[in-house]
């Protein structure tokens, strides 16, 4: 049986020998079996060397058979754009055409130049960065840092945009079960049969958890793994259950909100185009059952990182599930019982087991006898103190643990087990507090913070029978708590066999203890040794958080799943303090690294952020508009004609509006319908201006402040009826003004009878401005007398335009006679096109926001957010006239009285005339009184708006200048990098100062 690898054992495992899969690793082609992980398939092909470590570039193999893997990280590439770094070979399933490459090595995996760091490693001890590379000063930036950066970093980031698709889903359930081993399946079954809505997830491709390797476990008289599959099938067909495989619960957030990531296509050779690569599930569960199992720890001894050295249970997974023997001559080093099972399984499958090295003096267990009965040499009270070989383990050095002569035993694989660490990650993420259990030397769930419960190995429960009983009870109980009508599940499960999780050791083994200068790795990926942790303690790092940060222990991509407890124990020993005093472990999301794309899911490309367009957008686009982003809106910026740049287009538009007319899309302005008997009173409180006496059919410009007295928004308010107003806001201000008004209405002035409704998008708004505006619109207007006498500046009326209901405002943001026509939005384009068609032959142009800005600046009208910046009061902006003098209250009245608001030295809005008559000041340029002063200069103001005014034939600008109102006629200076520009302070009206054109 060699087609799927030389280490494949005939008759072993659950995969189908006929289902072969071709894949490549570092360019070489291999055959594996469907259902293999990359790690399993590589071991089957006798490949143990798969990566290089982070700092020392030491050769590394496959340590585990799951997501805790710190060493076997590879890059996986589907095509040029689909390259993913740092994929764990122990998780990635193979498929035809899978292309994997090793990482962090150059030029090749077997010969890596970076490995010189290993020889120089005494220099690169924990925290070495902090003590050196400081001299000479410039060298850090130019020499040391680039070198360190290039040496670090594992895999290579993709360089092209990711063409894959990701999906997201919110889901709700009564009971979420995290983990689908014997515990999780039992809990899910009990909850489901009780009638609860259940979601069950497991990170592996199939359910079973430890039953993947525990061959002797039997449930309901069946092989454990087979039971798991049947139970999964039973659950999957129930209407109240959702079963999610390849799905990792990565984050446990407030109020039982749990993030899951489902890997949908990475295991497929040719996924369908519409399938998402991954799907994010955001689950709100009434109860959560955590059945996350436990993770086996490695033994800490010299050179414990040689390829071929792995966790005992991983070897069982490879053998019992994949049918792969990890070696032919396999040593075992253990501190508990569970590694014996690995030795026994391998022995039975034909591998030689030269010795089981058990650090315990008198292991009293049937498995010991069973091993001996199979003829395996068991060395109790012994330790492995070193491993030989470089690219693959070749031997183990065995000594009596209390000293004595060493024996070197040749091996081609070495299995180890220091015991099992309960996976309290999700419990800890839920903000539960773990507690140290002195007796079993492990952290277990202590105080719960949310409605969840831990069952099975992650709860420190030993034995299959106990686990299943606990899980059934938890499942039933959760169902009852979540759902009043839950019934008795009636589920009973018979168990036989199954391993134990208790026992073992933590910390460094013999030969790697204090004073030993050996590389006994605690954190494989980050190359943290037992010695490094002791050094950290020696340097005063007495909190485990300091030790962790100083050594980087536990900060690699496996987030310390193997290393945390060992590191803590070594630090505690060095400090001579009990473990809980050195620090409790807390875990943060994510449990395993989680793809950005999955987290983002649909919110990419077009769905990154809504793009809001007005009803007339398509017509504007057809007319050649260039658009600008204003918040989420796309607004027509200017309409260049062939050969025109922005400048030329804007100049033409500005001229045309003043000479003939122009049409502008003002739809994006916010609109609020204010209705009720107290509507005027309410507006009177919300605006600085008085509103009580505004006549029906009249418009008024209003300024809104917050309590601090700074300008918050502005707009025009029209009175449609005694009890009905049409309020406009700035484009960006629409939502916050609405919120601000609702806040006051609901909480401060609840007695006022007023209702607010946003009508921002009900109306399309078409501004027609210029001397011919009336002539252009008149043929289409019904029911409104447009004459200046009947309909003067700042009036409004309801009627029809182009046959549809309209609110027509006689108003102007340009200084020209003009109209703003509001029509129901779905008619907007029709009205726009009609007016355009009619106005064009008369000389009317379309104009965009840039021209609007120039024209309003020619008139000195402010733009909130450009000429104000959140620190400008109505008085500063020269709008004192808009603050009701007789009003006794309005929002902002008190803020405007504060000492520094009324003091001298306020920056006030003025006009600037550039002395040379040509230079357009840069917006944002700073103003000084004395241009000759040294840096740092005293700045007395800044240019808020500045344009070339084609209508004035010169540049115009507005600026906020300290005591600007008192500086009329003064000369000030704008220092630019290459020269100083002289300006004269003026008022802000540059065009038609008398305002006659408004009334034309």
């Amino acid at each position, binding site marked *: 049986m060699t087609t799927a690898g030389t280490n494949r054992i005939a008759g072993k495992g659950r995969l189908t020998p006929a289902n072969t899969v071709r894949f490549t690793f570092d360019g070489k082609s291999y055959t594996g079996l469907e259902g293999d992980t990359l790690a399993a398939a590589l071991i089957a092909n006798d490949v143990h060397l798969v990566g290089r470590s982070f700092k020392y570039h030491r050769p590394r193999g496959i340590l585990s058979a799951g997501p805790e893997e710190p060493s076997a990280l590879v890059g996986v590439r589907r095509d040029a754009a689909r390259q993913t770094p740092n994929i764990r070979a122990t998780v990635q399933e193979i498929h035809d055409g899978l292309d994997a490459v090793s990482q962090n090595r150059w030029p090749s995996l077997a010969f890596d130049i970076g490995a010189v760091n290993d020889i120089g490693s005494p220099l690169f001890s924990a925290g070495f960065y902090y003590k050196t590379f400081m001299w000479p000063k410039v060298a850090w930036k130019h020499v040391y840092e680039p070198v360190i950066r290039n040496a670090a970093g594992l895999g290579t980031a993709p360089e092209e945009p990711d063409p894959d*698709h990701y999906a997201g889903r*919110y889901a709700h359930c009564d009971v979420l079960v995290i983990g689908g081993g014997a515990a999780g399946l039992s809990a899910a079954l009990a909850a489901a049969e009780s009638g609860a809505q259940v979601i069950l997830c497991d990170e592996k491709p199939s359910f079973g958890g430890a039953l993947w390797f525990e061959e002797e476990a039997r449930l309901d008289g069946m092989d454990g793994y087979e039971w798991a599959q049947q139970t999964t099938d039973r659950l999957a067909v129930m209407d109240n259950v959702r079963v999610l495989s390849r799905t990792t619960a990565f984050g446990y957030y407030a109020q039982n909100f749990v993030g899951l990531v489902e890997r949908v296509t990475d295991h497929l050779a040719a996924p369908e185009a*519409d399938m998402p690569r991954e799907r994010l599930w955001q689950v709100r569960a009434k109860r959560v059952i955590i059945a996350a199992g436990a993770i086996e720890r490695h033994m800490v001894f010299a050179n414990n990182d040689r390829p071929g050295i792995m966790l005992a249970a991983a070897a069982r997974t490879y053998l019992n599930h994949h049918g792969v023997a990890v070696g032919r001559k396999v040593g075992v080093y253990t501190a508990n019982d569970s590694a014996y099972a690995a030795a026994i399984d391998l022995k039975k499958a034909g591998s030689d087991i030269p010795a089981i090295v058990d650090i315990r003096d008198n292991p009293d267990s049937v498995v010991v006898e069973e091993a001996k009965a199979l003829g395996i040499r068991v060395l109790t009270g012994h330790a492995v103190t070193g491993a030989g070989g470089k690219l693959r383990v070749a031997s183990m050095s065995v000594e009596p643990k209390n000293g004595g002569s060493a024996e070197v035993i040749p091996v081609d694989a070495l299995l180890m087990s220091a015991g099992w660490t309960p996976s309290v990650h999700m419990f800890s993420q839920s903000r539960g507090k773990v507690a140290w259990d002195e007796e079993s030397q492990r952290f277990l769930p202590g105080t719960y913070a949310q409605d969840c419960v831990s069952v099975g190995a992650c709860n420190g429960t030993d034995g299959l029978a106990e686990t299943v009983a606990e899980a059934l009870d938890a499942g039933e109980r959760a169902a009852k708590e979540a759902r009043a009508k839950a019934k008795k599940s009636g589920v009973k499960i018979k168990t036989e066999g199954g391993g134990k999780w208790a026992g073992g050791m933590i910390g460094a083994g013999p030969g790697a203890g204090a004073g030993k200068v050996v590389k006994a790795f605690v954190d494989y990926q980050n190359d943290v040794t037992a010695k490094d942790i002791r050094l950290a303690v020696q340097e005063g790092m007495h909190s485990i958080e300091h030790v962790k940060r100083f050594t980087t222990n536990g900060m690699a991509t496996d987030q310390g799943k193997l290393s945390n407890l060992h590191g803590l124990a070594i630090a505690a020993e060095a400090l001579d303090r009990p473990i809980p005093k050195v620090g409790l472990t807390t875990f943060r999301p994510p449990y395993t690294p989680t793809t950005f794309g999955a987290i983002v899911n*649909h919110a990419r490309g077009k769905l990154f952020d809504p*793009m809001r*367009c007005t009803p007339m957008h398509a017509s504007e686009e057809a007319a050649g508009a260039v658009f600008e982003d204003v918040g989420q809106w796309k607004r027509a910026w200017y309409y260049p004609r062939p050969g025109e740049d922005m400048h030329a287009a804007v100049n033409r538009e500005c001229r045309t509006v003043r000479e003939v007319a122009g049409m502008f899309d003002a739809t994006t302005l916010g609109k609020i319908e204010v209705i*009720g008997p107290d509507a005027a009173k309410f507006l009177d409180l919300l605006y600085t201006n008085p509103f009580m006496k505004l006549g029906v059919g009249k418009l008024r410009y209003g300024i809104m402040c917050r309590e601090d007295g700074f300008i918050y928004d502005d707009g025009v308010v029209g009175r449609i009826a005694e009890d009905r107003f049409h309020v406009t806001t700035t484009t960006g201000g629409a939502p916050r003004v609405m919120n601000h008004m609702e806040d006051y209405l609901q909480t401060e002035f609840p007695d006022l009878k007023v209702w607010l409704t946003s009508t921002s998008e009900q109306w399309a708004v078409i501004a027609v401005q210029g001397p011919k505006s009336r002539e252009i619109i008149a043929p*289409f207007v019904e029911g409104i007398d447009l004459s200046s006498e009947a309909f003067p500046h700042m009036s409004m009326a309801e009627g029809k335009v182009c046959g549809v209901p309209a609110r027509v405002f006689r108003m102007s943001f340009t200084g020209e006679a003009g109209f703003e026509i509001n029509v*129901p939005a779905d008619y907007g384009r029709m009205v726009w096109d009609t007016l355009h068609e009619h106005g064009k032959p008369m000389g009317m142009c379309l104009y965009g926001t840039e021209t609007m800005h120039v024209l309003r600046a020619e008139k000195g009208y402010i733009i909130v957010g450009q000429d104000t910046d959140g620190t400008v009061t109505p008085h500063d902006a020269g709008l004192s006239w808009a603050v009701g003098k007789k009003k006794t209250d309005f929002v902002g009245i008190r803020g405007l009285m504060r000492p520094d608001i009324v003091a001298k030295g306020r920056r006030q809005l003025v006009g600037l005339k550039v002395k040379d008559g040509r230079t357009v000041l840069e917006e944002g340029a700073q103003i000084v009184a004395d241009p000759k002063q040294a840096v740092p200069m005293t700045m007395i103001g800044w240019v808020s708006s500045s344009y070339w005014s084609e209508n004035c034939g010169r540049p115009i600008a507005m600026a906020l200048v300290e005591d600007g109102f008192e500086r009329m006629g003064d000369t000030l200076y704008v220092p630019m990098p290459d020269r100083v520009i002289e300006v004269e302070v003026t008022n802000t009206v540059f065009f038609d100062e008398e305002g006659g054109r408004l009334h034309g």
Partner: protein
Amino acid sequence: MADVQIARALPLAGMVHGGAEVTVSAAPAAYRISLRAGGPAVAALSKALGVTLPKKPGTSASAGSRHALWLGPDEWFVFDETADPAADCAKSKAAHSAVDISHRNTAILVSGPAAADVINAGCPRELSLEAFPVGACSRTVMGKIEIVLYRTGAEDFRVECWRSFSDYAFAFLADAARGL
């Protein structure tokens, strides 16, 4: 007046995204109002509208083509594809605010066995029939926008959103309908 062809252009006119599991399509034009009123006016307005304005949070009432959705303690969303509810409200003397939002909103219909799943791609609300039965309605969010969600059948939803967000809403639902 100059001769103009009156044409109402719905933002998503005619758009359909279909599949076996779900169909996403633009709803026909409708009259819509945002109705606000205090307790005492509710009975009178119900009478004027010909539909009893629901008082229970999250519920709706229908009469013929007219549907009234509870959105807040003094707020209803009323829509009707054939007759203008604003005109009926205007007949009532009771103190209220009825604002025409026929054009502010547009609607998308989502139907099929996967309809709830597709909406749940971006809407964090529980949409089981138990939690959100036929007739349930609510203002809520979907992806990055606000919507009004109204369940019209076990597998049928009406998603109302503001006009300028409809392009996003439709694209979102279509994206969510991929590879279910």
